[in-house]
C-alpha cells in the first residue's frame, strides 16, 4: 500500500505533457479542479472524462501506474460514498437496516467519487510529468506578481517543492524500514486490522527521525551553498512559453467554457 502512493513522484517519459511549461500544467490542474466542482450534470462529466483520458494518453505514463495511487485512497473513497449515500435526504430507493438509500444520495455519492478519483489522477499527472525543480520554477514565475504585495513567493515555491520531493523519499524510506523489520521476523500481513496497525507503530519512530535528519541535512547543505532567495536568482533553463503552451491555454479556455455551457444545456434538455 505504501508503494501505491503516486502523488509527488516523477515519471520520466518523452511526451507532450512532459514538455509543457510548468505554469501551463499548474493552470491546467487548477482549471480541471474548478471544472470538477462546477460540473452539475452528466455532460460536464463526459467532457471532464474526455479531457482526463486525453491527458492520460498524451502523458505516456502507464495507466496502471497512475491508478495505482487510487488504491491508497480506497478507504477515504468508501467513507465518502457511504456517508453521501446513506445520509442524503430525498426519494428513497431502498432501505438498508436503519438507513434509507435515496436517489439523490446515490447521485451525490457517485459525483463525489468521480470528483475524488479525477482529482487524484489529475494532480498525480501534474507531479508525474513535472520535476520538482520545474514545478518550483513554474510556481515562482507564475506567482511572481504577488511579490509586489511582499508575498515571499520564492520561499513558498521552495517549501512546496521540498514537501513534494519528500513524499517519494519518505515512501521509499518506509519501504526500507519495513524490509529491515520483515527481515528480522516482523510480519505486516498477518493478524487482524488492529494487529496490523500495531505492527506499523514501530515504523513511525525511525521514519520521523529520518525525516528530521534529512530536513536538517538539506538545510545544512543549502546553507553551505549560500542559498538565499533574497537576490534575484538566474536559471540554467529559464521558462519561456512555446507555441504548444499557448495552444494549451486556448484548449483550456474552450474546455472551461464548455463546462460552463453544460449548465445551460441541461436546462434546455430538461425543458424539452
Amino acid at each position, binding site marked *: 500500500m505504501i508503494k501505491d502512493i503516486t502523488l509527488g513522484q516523477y515519471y520520466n517519459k518523452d511526451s507532450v505533457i512532459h514538455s509543457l511549461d510548468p505554469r501551463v500544467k499548474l493552470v491546467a490542474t487548477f482549471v480541471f479542479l474548478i471544472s470538477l466542482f462546477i460540473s452539475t450534470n452528466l455532460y460536464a462529466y463526459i467532457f471532464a472524462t474526455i479531457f482526463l483520458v486525453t491527458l492520460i494518453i498524451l502523458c505516456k505514463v*502507464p495507466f*496502471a*501506474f497512475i491508478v*495505482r495511487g487510487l488504491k491508497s485512497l480506497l478507504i477515504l473513497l468508501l467513507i465518502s460514498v457511504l456517508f453521501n449515500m446513506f445520509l442524503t435526504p430525498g426519494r428513497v430507493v431502498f432501505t438498508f437496516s436503519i438507513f434509507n438509500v435515496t436517489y439523490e444520495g446515490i447521485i451525490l455519492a457517485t459525483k463525489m467519487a468521480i470528483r475524488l478519483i479525477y482529482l487524484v489522477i489529475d494532480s498525480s499527472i501534474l507531479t508525474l510529468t513535472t520535476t520538482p525543480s520545474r514545478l518550483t520554477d513554474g510556481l515562482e514565475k507564475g506567482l511572481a506578481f504577488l511579490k509586489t504585495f511582499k508575498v515571499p513567493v520564492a520561499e513558498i515555491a521552495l517549501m512546496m517543492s521540498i514537501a513534494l520531493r519528500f513524499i517519494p523519499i519518505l515512501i521509499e*524510506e518506509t519501504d*526500507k*524500514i519495513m*524490509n*529491515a*523489520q*520483515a*527481515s*528480522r*521476523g*516482523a*510480519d505486516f500481513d498477518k493478524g487482524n486490522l488492529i494487529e496490523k496497525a500495531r505492527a506499523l507503530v*514501530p*515504523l513511525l*519512530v*525511525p521514519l520521523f*527521525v*529520518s525525516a528530521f*535528519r534529512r530536513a536538517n541535512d538539506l538545510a545544512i547543505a543549502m546553507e553551505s551553498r549560500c542559498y538565499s532567495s533574497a537576490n534575484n536568482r538566474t536559471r540554467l533553463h529559464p521558462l519561456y512559453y512555446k507555441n504548444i503552451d499557448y495552444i494549451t491555454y486556448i484548449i483550456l479556455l474552450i474546455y472551461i467554457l464548455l463546462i460552463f455551457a453544460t449548465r445551460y444545456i441541461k436546462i434546455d434538455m430538461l425543458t424539452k
Partner: protein
Amino acid sequence: MPIFEVKNIYFRYDKYDKNEIYTLKDVSFNVEKNDFIALIGKSGSGKSTLINHLNGLKKADKGDILYNGKSIYAEDFDLTGLRFKCGIVFQYPEYQLFSETVIEDVEFGALKKGLSKKEAYEKAFEILKYLKIDNLKDEIPFNLSGGEKRKVAFAGVFAMEPDIFIFDEPDAGLDSVSKRHFYEMLKDLNKNHDKTIICITHNLDDVIEYANKVIVLNDGKIERIGSPFSVLSDKELLKKCNLIAPYSIDIYRHLHEKGIEIDTSRLKYKDILDELDKVLL
C-alpha cells in the same frame, strides 16, 4: 543439496513500463553449505537487489529460488522462518535500526523468534559483548556514529542466530581495526560454526583473503562464477565490470613477469608474505 538454488530469475522495479530494463536478468547460481561467497560488481549492477531476493523481500518476476529444495514462492512456504535462518545486514544500517535503545533493537529478532523477554535480553547482551559494544546498550541507536550503527545492525542479525549471513557492503564506515576484526569474525563463523556467508563488497583484497567463491554481476547478469583467483586474475573481465585487481594479484603478476612463480591457490596476505620470504631468503 545446495542451500539456495537461484534459477533464472528476472526482476524489474517498474512493473508498469514494458520498456523498463530488467535489474536482474536470467540470474542463476547455487549457494552450498559453508560457502563464503563474495558478490562483486560495479555500482548499480543489481547486487543489493539480488540479495533481497534470497529471503523473499523482493519477488522475482520470472524464475524461481529454492531453499533446501523448496520454492520460496510456494504458497505454503514459511517465509518468516526463512528470514530467521537467513539474516541480512543492509547497506545502510540506519534503516535496520528502529527501536528506542540499542539493546531493544538487538532483542527484536530474538523476541520475534519466540524467545522470552529475559532470554532475548540475555542473548542480546551476550552478542553486544561479543562485538565489544555492550557499553552502547542503553544508547539511542539514531545518535550513534556510522560505524557503531553498523555494529548494532550486525548484533541485531546475530541475535537471530541465522545459518546464513548476508552482508551488503559490511565494511563501509568501519575503521581499519574494526574492519579486520569483523572479517576475522566472519571467517570464524564460517570455519568454526558452519555458517554460510554471502557478502557484497567492493574491497577485492578482502575477497581474495576470505571468500571461497566469487560471483560477478554486471548490468544485472551473472558475468562469472569461480574461485577468487580465477575471477580476479582475468584482466578483461575486471575491465568489463569496472573493477580493479587486488594488490595480491598485482604482486603475483609482477613476480610472474620476473620469472618467479608462487602458488596461486595461496594468494592471501600471509601466504604472499610466506611466498616472498621463500623467494627472497
